[in-house]
């Protein structure tokens, strides 16, 4: 019973690097929704925050690319990006290697996962933390799903990864908040940056809020690449959060396209209370 919070949000570097260029009529309610997400996270009184991120070549390369990896370090450094470019000061963020180790061991009971005692955060984790724990003082357990270098883990496995995280978190006494962060449709860091398939995003989040496992995991990578761009592969991070909350539904608090942020700005939460079916599974 120690997963105390589950949420999702976008993490585009533009959210900090180019915030002033977004239309205030959309940016302000988006940032207000992130403020609400922060308040809900704080109200859950977490001992640690586990961030499921779509890492972007900050730590792993195609010489040895884990499908899934969880951090087990004493501390983490970030951002790897030029701090002036991202507008987030480079700093050290605390970890909790003992807690990480127990969570990783628990996850391994159900799925295979790599672990890492060295890990640098890029915008994919630094941007969410800058909104959710702006003091960067809550210990972090980073988790990564390879969403960049195919072959990629199937969506069904991402859901299973979430289920395994849930079981592992529930087996430790610490209170853990879980945040999944990725884009929905987007074509990031390319000439098409700013292109957003709003309809696709809303349909995805509709499937996410009702935690419809079959619908969430039915996209083929070919369809995602066609309709949601290469950035759409990052839905794995959001699907994992749904897996951690199997049997429960969620709420989307905000979703609007913000082209200068390269994605829809979105925020949502999911009920983390245990279900009889999830406990028995």
């Amino acid at each position: 019973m120690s997963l105390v919070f589950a949420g999702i949000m976008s993490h585009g570097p533009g959210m900090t690097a180019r915030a002033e260029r977004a239309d205030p009529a959309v940016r302000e309610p988006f940032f207000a929704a992130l403020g609400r997400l922060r308040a809900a996270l704080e109200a859950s009184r977490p001992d640690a925050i586990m961030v499921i991120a779509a890492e972007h070549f900050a730590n792993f390369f195609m010489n040895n690319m884990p499908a899934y990896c969880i951090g087990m370090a004493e501390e983490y450094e970030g951002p790897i990006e030029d701090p002036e470019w991202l507008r987030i000061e480079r700093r050290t963020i605390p970890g909790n290697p003992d807690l990480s180790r127990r969570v990783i061991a628990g996850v391994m009971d159900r799925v295979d996962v790599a672990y890492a005692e060295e890990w640098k955060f890029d915008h994919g984790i630094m941007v969410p933390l800058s909104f959710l724990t702006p003091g960067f003082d809550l210990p972090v357990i980073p988790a990564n799903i390879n969403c960049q270098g195919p072959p990629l883990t199937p969506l069904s496995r991402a859901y299973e990864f979430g289920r395994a995280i849930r079981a592992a978190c529930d087996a430790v006494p610490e209170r853990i908040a879980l945040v999944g962060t990725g884009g929905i449709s987007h074509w990031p860091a390319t000439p098409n940056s700013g292109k957003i398939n709003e309809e696709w995003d809303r349909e995805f989040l509709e499937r996410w809020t009702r935690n419809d496992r079959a619908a969430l995991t039915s996209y083929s990578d070919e369809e995602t690449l066609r309709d949601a761009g290469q950035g759409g592969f990052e839905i794995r991070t959001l699907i994992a959060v749904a897996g951690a909350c199997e049997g429960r539904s969620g709420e989307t608090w905000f979703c609007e396209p913000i082209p200068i942020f390269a994605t829809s700005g979105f925020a949502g939460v999911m009920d983390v209370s245990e279900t009889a079916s999830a406990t028995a599974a």
Partner: protein
Amino acid sequence: MSLYALQKLLYELNRDAAVQEAYTANRDAVLSRYRLTGEEADAIRADDIGKLYILGVNGQILMHFAAWRGLSWDEYIQAMKDGLAEHGQVRGGLYAAVDGGEGGAL
């Protein structure tokens, strides 16, 4: 085609200050550690972001390299558009398959 080596060089540059310092001090010495094609090495030496995009470098690697080389966000986006206009569609990597094989075309 050594896109793997090209991206590995940029990946290591992006995340390791020691590699950046070595690159600044003696670029060719760093380049010689990677099995780059002549075309790739030329693009790197010229800070030709558009060409690197066409050669298939992933944007999650390229945008950080571009920022380190002093390009603003708008300059980075424009450099890739210029690359597409000059060289045609992306030749390798993930983006060659984007948008139904249009290779990143706008």
